[in-house]
Every structure is written in C-alpha cells, then in structure tokens.
C-alpha cells in the first residue's frame, strides 16, 4: 500500500474504529505504533476520557484495505485495549468534526 497515490488513497473506502482503552500516557503510542510500523496511515484520530477518566475512547478513521482485519486483531491484543468496534465511514463522529478542518 506504500506506493498508492494520494488520489487512489482518497478513493478507498473508509472505516471508523472505536476503541475503549485504559487512560494513561502510553496507550496512544501503543495503538498508533501498530499502524505506523506497517506504514498504514491513520487518517483521523480523536480521543477523550470517558466517565471518571479511568478509561478513554479512541476514534480512528482509517482506509479499509486488506490488512484491516489483521490490524483489528492486533489492536485487540493490546493489554490496555478493552474493546474494539468497527463502524462504517458514515459514522458521524468524524463527519461532525470536519467543520473544524475547513
């Protein structure tokens, strides 16, 4: 996937991943490291604490390529990841955020 052009990249279907994680300083690094080592770009990222702040929710917007199933399994293996849910690109979390990027 490294060689695909920017326009091809934008034409790919998107997936939104929702991760429930323990909230501590290293957890983001654990998650995004799985993507960066595979040269798999994370197109969008959003994280906020949930409830009393013991856990956070991470939203990731990624391209849907053939490695996505493996990515989800790798994320599920992380000790600090409590749950992973997959959503379609139509999920509104990033749609509503887009107005901040105009």
């Amino acid at each position, binding site marked *: 996937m490294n060689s695909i052009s920017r326009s091809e990249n934008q034409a790919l279907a998107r997936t939104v991943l929702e991760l429930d994680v323990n909230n501590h*300083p*290293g957890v983001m*690094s*654990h998650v995004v*490291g799985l993507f960066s*080592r595979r040269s798999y770009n994370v197109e969008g990222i959003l994280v906020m604490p949930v409830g009393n702040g013991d856990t956070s929710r991470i939203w990731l917007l990624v391209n849907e390529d053939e490695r996505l*199933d*493996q990515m989800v*399994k*790798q994320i*599920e*293996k*992380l*000790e*600090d990841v409590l749950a992973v849910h997959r959503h379609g690109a139509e999920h509104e979390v990033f749609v509503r955020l887009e107005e901040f990027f105009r």
Partner: protein
Amino acid sequence: MSQPTPETLTGAQIVVRLLERQGVRTLAGIPGGAILPIYDALSKSVLIHHVLARHEQGGGFLAQGMARATGMPAVCMASSGPGATNLLTAIADAKLDSIPLVAITGQVPRAMIGTDAFQEVDTYGLSIPITKHNFLVSSADDLLSVIPQAFRIAASGRPGPVLVDIPKDVQNQLVEVSNWPDPGCADPVPAPAAELIDRAAAMINAATRPILYLGGGVVHSGASGTAVSLAEKARLPTVMTLMALGAMPVDHPLSLGMLGMHGARCTNLALDECDLLIAVGARFDDRATGKVAGFCPQAKIIHIDIDPSELDKIKTAHIGIAGDVGTVLQSLLPAIAAPVHDDWLARVASLKAEHPLRMPGIDDPRTPYGLIRAVANCLDDAATITTDVGQHQMWVAQAYPLRRPRQWLTSGGLGTMGFGMPAAIGAALAEPERTVVCFTGDGSILMNVQELVTAAEENVNVKIVLMNNSSLGLVFQQQTLFYGERIYASKFKGMPDFIRVAEGFGVPAIDLDQESDPLAALARALSTSGPMLIHASIAMHEQVLPMVPPGAANKEMIGG
C-alpha cells in the same frame, strides 16, 4: 496472603520482595546509576542469585536461556540509557520467539525525565514495538500491582517479554505495605469451540494426504506428547518448524524433520502434495513456507493457535481454532477415527527413500555434519543444545537427533547472532544437572564473547563447540549462490586465537584441529564438568543444503 504488621519499604525493596514471592531464584543483569537502589535491595536477598553479565544483551539472553529451558518467566535487569538500549535486542528476540521474559530497567528520577538527563533514554517508547506490554512505573505503590501483572502478561496466552521501567526516585520512595499481592501467573485460556473441534476431526478423518505441521507453540504449551499421540492415532506424517524441533523425536517413523528453507527435499516435496495441512502452534513464517502461494498449494488448512491474530494472517485457514494447542489436541484425539491412507504413507516413505536429507561427511568429525553427529554420540537426550545463528545453526537443526521438547534452544524469529553462549549459560543455571552444548560459529561467538568470563565465574556446565570457517558462512554461501560469487565482507582476514581467547577469559579450551584422535578428545571434553570451549575448523566452502532461494517456492530447492 496478608502480613500481620505493615512494613515500611522502599520501592526497590518491594521489587525484590515481589520477585522472591514470584519464585525468582536466579536473575541476570548489570547494575548502573539508575538501578542502584534495586541492586542495594537485591544485595540483602538470601533467596535470589544475581548473575553478573558483562553486557546487558548477554544478560538478556542469559535470562532467555532460563526461560526457554524451563518455560517459566525469567528476569533480566539493566540500568537506564545504554543499559536499557543494550537489552533491546534480547527483548526483541524474545518477542519473536514468544519467550516469557520480564525485563526491569532503571530510569532517571521522574523530575528529570524529558530533560535529556545523563543516561536518559525513552526506554518505554523504545520497547513498545518489541514487548508484549510495558510499564513506566509512576509510584512505589504501583509496583505492587505492576510486578505481578508483568509476570502474568509474560506467561499468559502466547508468552512474550514485558518491560518494567522504574525511575530511581520511585525505587527510593517509601511505602507502607500491609498486604502482598499474589504472584502473577498465566490466565486461563478459554476452551475451544466444540463445533470447530468436530469439524476439524471430520476433516482429518476425511483427508487422503494429511500432514501435521508443528510449531514452537507446541513446545510452549507442553503439548508435545499429545501432538505425537495425534500423529500416531491419525497416522500423520509430521513436519516441524525450527522452533518445534524436539516436539516429536526426529527418528520417529512419522517424522519428516524440519520443513522450509533448509528442510530435506522429501519434507518439502511431501508438503507440496498434501491435501490437508494441520498447523499447530505454527505461524507460517517465511523461512518455513517459502513463497506462500506455492506452499501446500493443494491443501485445506486447519490452523490451531493460542493467538487469534495468527489465524488467517499469512494463509486463510479452512478451520481456524483459537485456543491452547494442548487442550485442542486433547479434545481432537477421541474424535479421530482409524484413518485409511496407506497410499499416502507409502508415497511419503518413497519420497523419504528417494530424497532423504543428505549429510555428506557424517562419519568424519572434521566435517560439519560429522562433528555434530560426533557430539551427539557422546551425549544422551538429557543434554540441552543451544545454537548461535548461521550455517552451524542450520546444520545442527538438520543433523542433531533432537528428541525432547525444550532440548533445543535457538533464536528462530529474530535470528540473533550472539544468542547461543549466554542462552546456554542461562539454561545451565536453570537446570544444572544437564550438560548444555552451545554450537556456535566464528562470527556469532564474537558478538557476545564477553560472557565467557560469566561462564567461568558461574562454573556452568556449558560446552561451546566453535565451528570455525573463517567467514560469515551463510553470507558467504548466499554471495556464492545468488550474487555471482562476488564474495564481499564475509571472509575474515584477521582471526583471533580462540583457544587463547577462551583461556584468557578463564574457560579451558581444546582444539580438535590439533588432536590426532578428535573423537576421543571430544568425548573427554564433553564428559568433564564446567565450561569448555571446543574449537574445530571446517572448510569455508561447505554449504547448508538443500536451500530454497529467498522468495522461491519450497519445491524449488538447490542441492541436497
């Protein structure tokens, strides 16, 4: 588990107490400024024997040797900065071979983190991609949960390394401890789905040309005996990965030995013809499969692994079963019917007869195969064999009669030169009643040669068989075969006098080249106690064959 009266202890004392409670009796490491509080506490421990390595990587491999020999998590320690970075290779090696390791590193005090303090490095960040999990401990109180967790994570499911980075001020922080946590131990693994077991059994019963493919997970799970029972009941020709050698005795009638890049022709050819591949605790590594599209092209696949992310990673399985491989094999056994595939067994027998592993010089101790066989003839199955990485490793994998799980300790996934000797020291410390033989090469041994003095100091029963071909043999071989014989940077011009090197480090040595009766000299050396280096020259042109060219399908073997 509760203490009657609260104790006030430092973080360092808590670490040591938790290691003792965990059952750790030997650990390896090197002290330095940022881990001195822990070493001070360790000095008071009457239970723990600290082995002073001479390079942190050596300490890491020493711990790996203990973990690989016993299956239990082992501990290594290092200080901050270079101490931690020196450990990284041994940690990455443990990750790729799924070895339970707990690495404890000192870190600069919390207030100095991020200031580029002396010997500060981002150990946490550096170790993320090469550990199963890691911790940067922010208070002494947290150690009470972090240390048991580290052992639990290292041992649970698919084992692996865990790093605990502890700032110096946390080591010095005083905490009142009234209750001690239970030692961390492996989480139970969920039972496999019964429906999948039934379908897998039906597929095995219906197969006409099945092959059982065992990986390192069989050894980790303690499932070798069960795997052999399955093979016998279902009459399955069986191949093993480099990591699984010893899971089935290599001279078992159903054994086809090691598959892949340096497997026997008959082994790779049988795989090419099979109609069912039963992969157990194996991860379809590229050195085992060759070009994946050409690997078992006609076969349906049953894949059993404790790590769900291994299923469908390289090859899509027709039936993927996530679970402890020992448990899965146990539940499969009763559902296996008496199979009828005599034609297939006859075909495999004829492949073995026509295309066996050829081991030229097996009777001559001055050749690679002959030397390995001569060593084996002096020992029984109680001996533990470690290797470094390169030609000698592949020759030993091919020729040594491995018959026992955990008899064989080798760096498979990362392929780390320098692994063998410190791992042998660790194995000998963990199981002092065994003779441990480390096969190494003149390239590999120099990568952790400093641990010779550790071997002398600990007086471990380690015999280092140094196969000296004055070159980086596997590089030399690849340049010969695939780079138009343009030999570059693989022939050593300067050669140390390894006898004097060993003796200088306090390890007795013999040179088989100088012995008129090398077999007798070898037998004498292997029967003495304590460390010994056994030097033997071999010819530079000797190759590991057969060989699948990198990127080719396994049936496209050169030589052999």
